[in-house]
């Protein structure tokens, strides 16, 4: 409805949305990410898996330059979004983050009303010309966040009063309200119960139609359920990247195999 599938996408393999080339990340003296090359496809769910501290969240945060807020963090290498280097000096991270939205580990709604939570992004980016426009965007986003039916009667109640699962879907709705092209999710279900997790996973699957979704997860079952592509990180290295089915059934690298079978991690 919002993005009619282009002919090209159906004929050829899906287009490359993000291409990372020899990315290195340092925290002070710590070499957190080593030589990561990865190509993330458009309209695909890509999962980053790996043991704690392996750098998957760090790498995810490189994709919308959220690491800029950490003083001691340095990024080297190249990350291309639609062929443009996002670490180019001319790139304003604010503009980048409007294209590359992010959902965080802990649901973090603003302490404002549900309506204002969603409307904030469109307002600062000037996406709505009138109040009516904004109402439309809010409703559309809440519907895409699969939370409209639950909150439509209390749009002006505080967003912090929702349950954890609802808050996380609100945050997803907030992220899609600015019409991003890529959606980054940093362990979006780790603070949720199994039912809320199920709802969010269902939502991620729907979002695949419109966006390129990159999700970091601790749960291999979740990666297997929602993603088409999986990348396995270990000690800052990208060990293996490929079709999810192939990674889980027939991994090439012995480290991937031992992680998936539960021997390391």
């Amino acid at each position, binding site marked *: 409805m919002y993005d009619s599938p282009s002919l090209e996408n159906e004929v050829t393999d899906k287009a490359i949305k993000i291409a990372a080339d020899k990315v290195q990340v340092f925290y002070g003296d710590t070499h957190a990410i080593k030589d990561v090359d990865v190509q993330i496809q458009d309209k695909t769910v890509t999962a980053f898996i790996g043991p704690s501290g392996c750098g998957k969240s760090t790498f995810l945060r490189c994709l919308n330059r959220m690491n800029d*807020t950490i*003083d001691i963090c340095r990024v080297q290498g190249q990350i291309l979004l639609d062929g443009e280097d996002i670490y180019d000096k001319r790139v304003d991270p*604010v503009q980048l*983050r409007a294209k590359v*939205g992010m*959902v965080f580990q802990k649901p973090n709604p*603003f302490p404002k009303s549900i309506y204002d939570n969603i409307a*904030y*992004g469109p307002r*600062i980016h000037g996406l709505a010309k009138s109040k009516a426009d904004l109402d439309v965007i809010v409703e559309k986003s809440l519907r895409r966040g699969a939370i409209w039916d639950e909150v439509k009667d209390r749009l002006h109640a505080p967003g912090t009063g929702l349950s954890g699962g609802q808050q996380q879907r609100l945050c997803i709705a907030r992220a899609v309200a600015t019409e991003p092209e890529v959606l980054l999710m940093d362990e979006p279900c780790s603070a949720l119960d199994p039912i809320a997790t199920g709802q969010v996973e269902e939502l991620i699957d729907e979002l695949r139609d419109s966006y390129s979704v990159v999700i970091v997860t601790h749960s291999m079952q979740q990666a297997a359920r929602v993603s088409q592509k999986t990348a396995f990180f270990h000690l800052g290295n990208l060990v293996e990247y490929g079709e999810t089915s192939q990674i889980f059934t027939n991994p090439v690298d012995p480290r991937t195999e031992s992680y998936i079978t539960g021997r390391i991690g």
Partner: protein
Amino acid sequence: MTDATASGAAPQKPASGSLLELDARTKRRNAAEARFKFYGMAAVGIGLLFLVLLLVSIVRNGVPAYTQTFISLPVELQAEKLDKNGNRDPEEIKKVSTFGYNPLIDQALFRVLEENGVESPFEKGADLRKMVSASAAAEIRDYVIANPEKIGETVSFRVLASSRVDGYLKGRVTREDLARDKNLDAEHLDIIDQLKEAGAVARTFNWSFILGADASESRPEQAGIGVSMLGSLFMMLVVLLLSLPIGVAASIYLEEFAPKNVWTDLIEVNISNLAAVPSIVFGILGLAVFIQFMHLPQSAPLVGGLVLTLMTLPTIIISTRASLKSVPPSIRDAALGVGASKMQSVFHHVLPLAMPGILTGTIIGLAQALGETAPLLLIGMVGYIASNYPDGVASGFLDPNSAMPAQIYEWAKRADPAYYERAWGGIIILLLFLMTMNIIAVILRRRFERRW
């Protein structure tokens, strides 16, 4: 087999010590805990005791300052003394100094004694006049200048009694004290006793203590704290207008924007140190910079406010930074994540959440500045007798004035014991202001926090 039936019937013996009896170690630990609770309660109790003692002594010593003894005098405004030429020209009336009014007061006093049938051992009016404050003549003169048409009539005045008479009614002055006092004799007190019976002398609530100006050393009965209250008000305005924006801007920059490096560390350490610098140091800095270098007027609330701003800034910066720090980083991430700029994330999300803390810190800083005396000592706001109200806003900032704590200090160091009571009375007003400010801080905090 027999064992099993026995144990089934009789209660089993615990394997190691009974739970129903305390062992020695547990007893010792419980005793230590009980002792600690006692120490804590004792500490709180001592604190409360001192607080109660403080409040009781302040109220006991300070409340008498709010009442004052007045003498009702029917004064005949004799035309031949006040307006010799009889043309009611204000300029000519002004030529009669307060000395010219003294005979009128004497006459009125004799008349009051006569009307009430009081025997007086004093022949001379000047002796009798010792019962009346030296301010009485000025009060009558001001009235006459304002109402020249009243000349020739007899007008009833309520004039201040002298501070010795006032002290006698308040129990501070006894006949024995007066044996060594040339300002008043025991015979005066006999007259006062009789006049009090007759209702011509009464002790009533004294608004002019709260609203009036300070008086010279010899007229404690006339002194009030009103003008220095205005001085404090103008100073606080300066402090608020300067320290809030500067402090908040500095904290936001340091907390949210500044890179973390040696320089910002150095600044941070220095701000913390400044908060601990004795206030008199700020006073001498103010003297050197604002008065000697910039030639701003001495004793002016503007300079006082500038000095107190310097003193308050570290407090405001520290509390603002603490409340900015306490805003969860997830809110900043959320704002940045939807594409807000750093400044938008700070001003739209972080600052509103930090507001209650900032306001509380500011009001606490202001309250601290309101009660500060030492820096005022050095820029000349102590010792100056604030006897006039400022004419307007500009003169309120620039004309010499005092401030409440400086006024209290000034009264406390004066020799006349009547000033002692006024110092305590001033402290009550100062404490009321501080309490009000703290209550406002609490209310603001509640209001802003209740939103979510």
